[in-house]
């Protein structure tokens, strides 16, 4: 499985220069402005894009059928994408922390909320990824995008409907939970997602 991760990171290295530049610029802007939403969005985007892009590259070169003919098995392939996505999110979060510490010379009172926000954003990213990956594994990248869009649209619609009925479900409701809870939810959704993906993948024929 190490080989799979190496492969994905090597492709990223060779192909991701444009993406890396864009992310870098975006990060600098986001962190220097201290805008919470921008940071969240970035980690959100990273968590969705990275592993899906990796899967897209695999699909393009029909890597999977070859990989399964080697000593690798289906679980290895699934797990490697989760690890890849997870590593990208963690890197993004660490980068964010670095920037925050570098840019903000303020007191702990100013720093801590920002850092907390980063961790929360990372956790949300993990949850989003956990929802997205099984969909992509099942439908493939193309159809997976559509499916994911429908999920988001559906969630928005649900939020709207609940609002109409008087139940306010807004972002602020979530951002005030204890940090530990976020991490736990992220971890649980990560684990569950892997189980579901393994199930989906074991049935897949190549």
């Amino acid at each position, binding site marked *: 499985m190490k*080989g799979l991760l190496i492969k994905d990171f090597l492709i990223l290295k*060779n*192909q991701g220069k444009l993406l890396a530049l864009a992310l870098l610029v975006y990060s600098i802007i986001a962190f220097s402005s201290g805008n919470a939403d921008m940071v969240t969005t970035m980690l959100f985007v990273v968590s969705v894009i990275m592993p899906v892009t990796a899967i897209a590259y695999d699909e393009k*070169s*029909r*890597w999977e059928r070859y990989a399964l003919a080697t000593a690798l098995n289906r679980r290895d392939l699934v797990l490697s994408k989760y690890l890849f996505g997870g590593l990208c999110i963690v890197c993004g979060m660490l980068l964010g922390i670095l920037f925050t510490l570098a840019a903000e010379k303020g007191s702990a009172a100013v720093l801590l909320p920002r850092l907390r926000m980063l961790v929360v954003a990372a956790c949300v990213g993990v949850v989003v990824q956990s929802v997205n990956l099984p969909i992509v594994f099942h439908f493939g990248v193309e159809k997976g995008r559509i499916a994911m869009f429908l999920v988001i649209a559906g969630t928005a619609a649900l939020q709207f409907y609940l609002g109409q009925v008087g139940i306010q479900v807004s972002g602020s409701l979530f951002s005030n939970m204890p940090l530990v809870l976020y991490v736990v939810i992220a971890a649980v959704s990560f684990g569950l997602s892997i189980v579901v993906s393994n199930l989906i993948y074991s049935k897949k*024929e*190549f």
Partner: protein
Amino acid sequence: MENVLEVRKLRKKYDSFELQDISLDLPRGSIMGFVGQNGAGKTTAIKLILNLIRADAGEIKIFGEKHNALDRKLKEQIGVVFDECNFPEYLTAKDIILVMKNIYRSFQVERFDKLLDSLKLPKNKPIKEFSRGMKMKLSIAVALSHGAKLLILDEPTSGLDPIVRDEVLDLFLEFIQDEDCAILVSSHIISDLEKVADYITFIHEGKIIFSENKDRLLEEYGVLKCSHHDFEQIDKTKVLGYRENQFSVAALIRKKDVPKGFLVEQASIEEIMLFMTRGERAS
């Protein structure tokens, strides 16, 4: 263990196509040509052998073990080449070394490097810029660099020019010098296999028509050529397929069944296949 690969009564049903009762044995030290038209079922059979798809019925044994219960060490001894190069095209050959080293414990970096040199493959160019022949040579180089004892290739030479095909054939012959190794290569280009294959398995519309020692096939079958008039006198039950034009008839027949005085020519493997599939049935 005499047979590196054993397949018994394999079955797989799709909506528009069915693979029925596929059986074959690949003895060690031999090359088996797996031939048939496009869509005859070669790729499906190979995918079943490699456990990429699940069979509806049947048994497959590799190195004497059930094919879906191979331990890692045995799985590493199977080298695979598909008709398209499956490596991500943004990687270079050098990148591949790093990746494959961590996929196959038995990957031999030096050997791979030497193969790249002798096949004249660039090490720092992204695979995207390789020609089709180069991509195929790369795939084969990888397959030959991890101590494989069984090579399975699905249409490795289609789309390649005769020069590259010849280079590839050389690699096979070198591989088979080790008596414990075996090659199963599927192709619809028969001429490559006709010379060097030890066994030929012919698949047509999902069924195995024959799986035989190549020399025996060549000894057994001939093409009889005669006039329409003379053709009438022949026992049609002995004719396995015939083709006629305005001026004469050509019929595939077992050499021992040829009536006296008739002109019979050696049938090539390709002709055997053509007559059996496209030839008219006489009875």
